[in-house]
């Protein structure tokens, strides 16, 4: 029973981090109709900058720079791909695949074979609640993600930025007729997505994961099924999808020994299996409103 509880809490915490990343996907897709395959490398960039700087600047300072770097990189991609090139949206999506490869290759070259610590203050401490043992990083991840997601959703609902974002998502030409500047909306979306990814990098690499290494972007990619199965154009979908993927990974990984007839490493595959299963039943995702046929 305690084992199940631990796995559930870990799964929710992991899911909250995936939700942060998936939210970035969704924001970019809603504002610009581009599926950003370079998202994992934005996360890697944020994590790498944080890891390199935390000795000099301290954890929070380094994280701030990392977040800024990822946000700027997102804005730069928006500028180059959408503002300058004016390519079709599906072409841009393919271009992001290429950018992802280049960025990830360069970052893994710099990281090399090492494992970098991001210098988070929680290290490997654990808390005992009742009989349940939970890593502090998991609790920090859950709280941080909850605060950020809450702030994001509030901004999305109540601020002018949120209204313009939703208006553009629904009908960009009419939004332009209202004097909304589409370029600003789309750039802000890429910035926000980059920033959220950089924060997620901290918790994807923190204990019990050893640290930032060349496999981090693969871990980050799991947010992709989260966004897809939630429905690419739904913020609620990103949250539910993130939690679903987090729980699946945690539970399947935890009970791996009982599932050994399916082979090892099932925890890594399970998120994608869940995605396929959901898409078979609901092609637009759980909360999506349109099927993505353009990608």
């Amino acid at each position, binding site marked *: 029973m305690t084992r199940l509880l631990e796995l559930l809490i870990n799964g929710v915490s992991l899911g909250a981090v995936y939700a942060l990343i998936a939210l970035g996907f969704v924001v970019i897709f809603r504002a610009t109709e581009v599926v950003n395959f370079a998202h994992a490398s934005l996360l890697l960039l944020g994590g790498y900058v944080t890891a390199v700087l935390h000795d000099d600047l301290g954890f929070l300072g380094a994280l701030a720079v990392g977040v800024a770097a990822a946000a700027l990189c997102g804005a730069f991609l928006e500028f180059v791909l959408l503002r300058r090139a004016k390519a079709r949206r599906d072409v841009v999506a393919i271009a992001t695949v290429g950018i992802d490869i280049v960025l990830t290759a360069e970052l893994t070259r710099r990281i090399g074979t090492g494992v970098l610590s991001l210098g988070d203050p929680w290290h490997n401490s654990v808390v005992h609640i009742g009989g349940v043992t939970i890593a502090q990083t998991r609790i920090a991840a859950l709280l941080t993600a909850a605060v950020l997601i809450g702030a994001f959703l509030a901004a999305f609902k109540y601020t*002018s930025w949120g209204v313009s974002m*939703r*208006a553009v998502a629904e009908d960009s030409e009419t939004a332009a*007729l*209202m*004097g909304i500047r589409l370029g600003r909306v789309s750039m802000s979306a890429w910035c926000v997505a980059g920033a959220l990814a950089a924060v997620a990098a901290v918790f994807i690499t923190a204990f019990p994961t050893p640290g930032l290494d060349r496999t981090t972007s693969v871990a980050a990619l799991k947010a992709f099924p989260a966004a897809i199965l939630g429905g690419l154009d739904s913020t609620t979908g990103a949250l539910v999808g993130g939690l679903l993927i987090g729980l699946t990974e945690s539970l399947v990984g935890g009970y791996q020994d009982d599932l050994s007839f399916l082979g090892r490493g099932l925890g890594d595959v399970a998120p994608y299996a869940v995605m396929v299963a959901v898409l078979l039943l609901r092609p637009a995702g759980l909360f999506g409103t349109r099927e993505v046929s353009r990608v």
Partner: protein
Amino acid sequence: MTTLAVRDLTVAYGRSVRALRRVSLEVPAGEIVAVLGSNGAGKTTIMRAISGTLRFHRAAIESGEISYGERRLTGAPAHRAVAAGVVQAPEGRRVFARLTVEENLRAGALGAARGAAGRRDRVFELFPVLAERRGQRAALLSGGEQQMLAMGRALMAAPKVLLLDEPTLGLAPLMAERIAETIREINRQGTSVLLVEQNAALALRLAGTAYVLDVGEVALHGPAAELAASDEVRRRYLGVTEEAGPLDAAPRRTLARWSA
């Protein structure tokens, strides 16, 4: 007084399809100006050119000029036109269906944030039904209510010139009449209006001046009352024939109208 002026405007979609040829028109301050014409005459293209949304349709201005007073709007992005006070309520209403009525109005004010609260009160005064339904999603409104919302949303941007593209399209006659009444009221409060309409009778009643477009060119223009009285407009756009003859003569006249 500030005039919205279009001079010798030529617009092409892609490289070959020319939708407008050297079209000139003027909307003097405080006036209602109507643009009439059949489908494909280029009415909506004029609207797009003025409000800077041709690029959404792979179209561009080839030559000519658009200006509002001293400000040159030729080829400017949409937000520049809005900032200058030239705001369009698009054809087919195009309300943001998943946003509430209130959020739609808020979106309308994003290009001109100052004084938005006062303008919202004015919109609610003009369209009381929007105040009643402020919390509802726009998708749940009726067609007439959506048209009111589209006009209210455009008013939120503090227009000095309001561009209305087919505001009565697909509405019941009674609702069309109410929209017409509101257009007159908006104009009375000091906003010039450029009105594109297929309902020529209604447009000519509202407008002071009218232009008739035919396949991308201005075929006729002048005071609306004169146009309404002219034979050609009566025959082609008002569906009025010379002699209100007996029923048995009707089929031949209908044929003549179609072949015109």
